[in-house]
């Protein structure tokens, strides 16, 4: 009677584990805990590491499963894709629910961008582990150390390539930023001569804005970049990033100047650190949904 061995060979197990490790490392290096607080720390951070681990696990078992004629592995990959889409929807819903309770709303364009990024990072995990295990199977070495070194090199190269490919630009890349001159005329607010709002009808608020308000003026580097900078979603994202990091005392406005394409971001911060505010605004990501490529492309 033939006995079917169900024990996984040690080298297969090692290759799979190395793939899982590199995939999880991919998620670890792509999680950024900064002033944007997405994901939040520590719960959101932990959730993302765990989902990254599972994505990596699915990616790394695909090659050994296919080699053992188990074509169900492809189905598992399709399930993973569906699961990542669910993660995107979940993050989108969660951010939309908390959007009204922040200092300034993120806006649907920014939320869409964040949720897509989360989905993409799970694909990075999956593809890193899949690619790493594939390289280990191509090398076909029985040595643990050669496998470990190959996994490190292949995994790092894959992570670097995919991060480089999915990396977007920042606001600081497409415009110059400076603090504008605040001028309150009755209930109207002007920044560098640009009319911003007439909502300063209370003397108390006029005084508050005069004393503590900050107004950043962004000037696009070219006409083409005006399309990105003047987009409502992009302006909401800039204001949100500044307000999220430094707080606002009720008053926050954005306005665009039609003749020259400058935009104004004006608010009264709770923490008034001008250097850090300008850095936060400069580091606001350019939203993929509003990004404009060269005409004709």
């Amino acid at each position, binding site marked *: 009677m033939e006995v079917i061995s169900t024990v996984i060979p040690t080298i297969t197990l090692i290759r799979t584990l190395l793939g899982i490790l590199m995939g999880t490392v991919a998620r670890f290096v792509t999680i950024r805990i900064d002033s944007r607080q997405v994901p939040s720390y520590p719960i959101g951070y932990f959730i993302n590491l765990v989902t990254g681990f599972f994505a990596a696990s699915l990616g790394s078992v695909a090659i050994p499963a296919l080699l053992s004629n188990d074509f169900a592995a492809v189905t598992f990959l399709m399930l993973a894709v569906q699961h990542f889409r669910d993660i995107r929807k979940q993050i989108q819903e969660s951010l939309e629910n908390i*959007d*009204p309770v922040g200092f300034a*709303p993120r806006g649907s364009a920014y939320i869409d961008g964040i949720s897509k990024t989360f989905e993409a990072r799970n694909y990075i995990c999956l593809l890193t582990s899949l690619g790493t295990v594939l390289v280990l199977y191509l090398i076909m070495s029985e040595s643990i150390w050669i496998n470990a070194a190959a996994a490190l090199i292949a995994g790092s190269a894959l992570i670097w390539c995919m991060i480089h490919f999915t990396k977007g630009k920042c606001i600081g890349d497409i415009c110059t930023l400076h603090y504008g001159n605040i001028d309150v005329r*009755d*209930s109207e607010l002007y920044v560098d001569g640009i009319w911003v709002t*007439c*909502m*300063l*009808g*209370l*003397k*108390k*608020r006029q005084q508050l804005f005069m004393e503590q308000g900050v107004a950043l003026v962004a000037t696009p580097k070219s006409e083409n970049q005006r399309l990105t900078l003047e987009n409502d979603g992009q302006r909401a994202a800039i204001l949100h990033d500044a307000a999220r990091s430094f707080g606002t005392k*009720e*008053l926050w406005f954005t306005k665009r100047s039609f003749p020259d394409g400058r935009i104004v971001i004006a608010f009264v911060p709770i923490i008034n650190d001008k250097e850090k505010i300008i850095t936060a605004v400069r580091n606001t990501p350019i939203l993929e949904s509003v990004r404009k490529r060269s005409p004709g492309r």
Partner: protein
Amino acid sequence: MEIILYITDCPNRVITGHPLALNMPNDAERQTLLEMLAETLEASVIQIKNGDHIIVRRNG
């Protein structure tokens, strides 16, 4: 953006309907009311060129 209240010093501009329009010629009294409502409702106050005030609130 929602208009909550219109305050004027001219009774001719007070027309019934939505939003509520009030005639308040006393400036000090009006400022007190505006401040109180703006703080309570987390709303903004617009002063238009004829001196009238509008209380507005951002939706969402």
